[in-house]
């Protein structure tokens, strides 16, 4: 689906159990997001595609997740709002770099797709998945979670407000139960 098709699809009600990425795209656009950086995850693929097609948004593919934290801080210094997309395994890579937005009190908005917590077939995903929330809290990031598409849309809408209107560093964890089992 192209950006134009997403925009024109607004008249038909969306099933948030499956269409939450479309709703998130609209929400983040309405929140004024102008820069998006990411290390890809299957759960973020629709958002990445929509933002990559959006000429009003700058997207950066990253070699490691902490790069996105620095880019987002620089974007805010220059007056633009951004979001960083990653999988839970990438949160560990971000910890020291998060001192940058925490110390400068720069709005930070991270969307994290979870692994290692629900119907996980790859045991190597479990350690960081289980440590994600504690690690983020330890460095000073406020953590919120969503377990359904409907819940996620509501959480993201208010979390974006807290990040950009109340200067908070926020990560929204998208539960693996919501994302479904990875197919091989």
């Amino acid at each position: 689906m192209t950006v134009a098709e997403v925009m024109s699809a607004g008249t038909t009600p969306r099933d948030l159990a499956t269409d939450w990425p479309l709703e998130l795209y609209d929400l983040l656009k309405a929140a004024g997001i102008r820069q998006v950086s990411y290390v890809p995850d299957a759960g973020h693929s629709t958002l990445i595609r929509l933002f990559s097609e959006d000429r009003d948004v700058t997207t950066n593919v990253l070699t490691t997740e902490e790069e996105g934290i620095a880019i987002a801080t620089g974007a805010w210094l220059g007056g633009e709002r951004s979001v960083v997309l990653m999988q839970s395994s990438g949160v560990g890579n971000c910890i020291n770099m998060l001192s940058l937005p925490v110390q400068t009190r720069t709005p930070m908005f991270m969307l994290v797709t979870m692994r290692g917590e629900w119907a996980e077939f790859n045991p190597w995903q479990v350690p960081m998945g289980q440590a994600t929330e504690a690690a983020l809290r330890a460095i000073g990031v406020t953590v919120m979670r969503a377990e359904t598409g409907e819940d996620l849309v509501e959480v993201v809408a208010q979390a974006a407000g807290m990040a950009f209107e109340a200067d908070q560093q926020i990560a929204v964890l998208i539960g693996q139960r919501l994302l479904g089992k990875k197919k091989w």
Partner: protein
Amino acid sequence: MTQHQMDRRAAVNKLLAARDGALVVTGLGSPSYDVHAAGDEDSNFYLWGAMGGAALTGLGLAQAQRDTRVMVITGDGEQLMAFGALATIAVAAPKNLDIIVLDNQHFGETGMQPSHTGRGICLARVAAATGFADSAELRSLEEVDALVDRLRMPAAGPRLFVLKIKAENLPRSLPPRDAVFVKNRFRAHLGLAPC
């Protein structure tokens, strides 16, 4: 064979004297002190930590302020920690981002342990390999004078210049430690609200 190395503060002074409205982001440690020693400015954003974040903070800033030149001034150790960032920046291809690496080939803040750049890694060649529009390694202040003119020319993409400097710890010139103050001062310079 001894190769020429320049005085870091003299080099930074030359670059900043010709900044012409450029926004400046500095990497932690001596590059922050060098830029502060040249004169504290509202349009300077100093890092005191977040090692590996300077060039990428510059990227986000350059993408938000496309009509303004952004100059990142950092050290070899700081840029080595963000080796992959050179790939990210090359792919993003901003035309208003210049990275200056003050390369003393050592981790100067922690006891002058030799870094990778003193053991054969050339960051200018790495930048060229990733696709930076321009890059070079400079060894004299005369070459920095020429670089000032080169930086005034419009860029086709990101540029990276390595300045080979003497390995010495000069008296510290400490920027404000209050990161919120520095951020808000920087944003106010751009006409943005504090927060």
